């Protein structure tokens, strides 16, 4: 099993962190994993993305041409990476910031992650909500490992953030956990 995930959004949305948490969790499960960020001048102008591959075998390229899953947190990222999602791939999109159309040959999960995060009290945890949503649909790593990673990587002086991050994660999971497609899920 190999899962290739592209995660993209704006600077400050915690894109890199989302990817790292996923990768760390996979590492704890002794899977092969690679994480590759966008870097350099690419990160000016406020876009950010990273690529995560989780696999049971040695991984070749850490760069992803065609992704199995795509998590997009803002509009420019959606526009940019939409073409790189494989047919019937999984799209997790932040409907708070993206006016999406449906012309995508994929499974799509659109949820207002930014709004959800704001409701939880911190706009910055939108990424965890999206991660929860993704992981609920594509259980490539165990949720408990993600939770552990969140606990472990929080800097000492920011331990208070652990709780809200975990709550956002749970909220994201819950979206899919509802197991209905009403709210945001569509097959395009």
């Amino acid at each position, binding site marked *: 099993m190999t899962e290739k995930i592209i995660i993209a959004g704006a600077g400050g949305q915690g894109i890199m962190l989302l990817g790292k948490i996923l*990768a760390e969790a996979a*590492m704890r499960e002794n899977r092969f994993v690679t*994480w590759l960020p966008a*870097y350099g001048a690419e990160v000016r102008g406020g876009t950010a993305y990273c690529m995560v591959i989780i696999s049971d075998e*040695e991984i*070749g*390229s*850490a760069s992803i041409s065609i992704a199995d899953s795509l998590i997009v947190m803002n509009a420019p990222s959606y526009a940019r990476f939409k073409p790189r999602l494989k047919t019937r791939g999984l799209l997790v999109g932040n409907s708070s910031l993206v006016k999406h159309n449906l012309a995508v040959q994929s499974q799509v999960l659109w949820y207002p992650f930014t709004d959800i995060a704001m409701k939880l009290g911190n706009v910055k945890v939108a990424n965890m909500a999206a991660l929860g949503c993704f992981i609920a649909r594509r259980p490539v790593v165990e949720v408990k490992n993600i939770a552990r990673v969140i606990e472990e990587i929080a800097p000492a002086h920011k331990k208070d953030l652990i709780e809200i991050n975990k709550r956002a994660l749970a909220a994201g999971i819950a979206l899919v956990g509802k197991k209905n497609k009403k709210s945001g899920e569509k097959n395009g």
Partner: protein
Amino acid sequence: MSKKILMTGNEAIAAGAIQAGCRFYAGYPITPQNELIAYMAKYMPQANGIFIQAESELAAINMVFGAAAAGARAMTSSSSPGMSLKQEGISYIAGAELPAVIVNMMRGGPGLGNIAPSQSDYFQATRCGHGDYHAIVLAPSTVHEAYYGMREAFDLADKYRNPVIVLGDGMLGQMMEPLEVAQAAAESSKYKKPWALSGCLGRAPNVVKSFYLHEGKLEEFNLLLQKKYKRIKEKEQRAEVILADDAEIVLVAYGSMARIAKAAVKTLRAQGIKAGLIRPISLWPFPETIFRKLSAGRKKRSLLVVEMSYGQMIEDVRLSVGDRFPVEFLGRGGGGVPSEKEIIAKVKHVTGKKLHR
């Protein structure tokens, strides 16, 4: 069992260097190796080592010259344009027979190019700057190898009193992989440096230099260098060989490119095509012995060199195998990376096999 951590290739190189006893780093920022210098800035002082952000690549390589002359395990790092600026300094290090490690995380060229991964400085690394010298060139392919390869790099440098270039690329530098860090400290102290500059207390003065004024002296020195290179060529060829014995097509690739080639080999084997891989780890000395041995195996086979360039290592492959096998090439430059798909298509084209899925 030691804990695994997730690390970028750049950080792994820095961490591996410190672990290998490197206590002097001088560098100048350039993408895609900035995580390396940042790691050094943070952790070198903690290891009681010296970190200097130099005013330029020129200053950095010449600082490494000085630190090595003073007996420290010393290194610098850069990426392609910065590496070109270090050419004079590397030649001086070779000429003064100083041990030092130079990391090049290659990016797209020529000129300013871009910051995407590339392998188009192979020629520069293996054929170097002015004068008949050679740096030992190592090409790690994983974060693990990036980390542990640094110990080898410093050991080789000390053993032969020679510059060692670690040749990576932007992808290896930027990507994170799980890494189990070493527990035991490196035994850097086993290499004595009686030639190092430390003040002439209790001994005759030492001189570190590459200049030979008197007729014939430089040639004499060069003959010694050539002997050393011969020794290195005999002893230090390194390569990973995968399924080459019965292969009808042997891929040849190094560094990040070899990872993709390896994946392609797996896929091809699964499809019934007898593919193999030779991954040179030492680019200089080039592992020609392994290629020479290849003749012993089956007759009808071809080699396919895959590079993130328009064909550089292929020359060493051709020089190693002569006319015995056809040597095919697949390469992309300017930051383009041949994909597994492209490799497979090329293999099928070369072997004349149809795509059967």
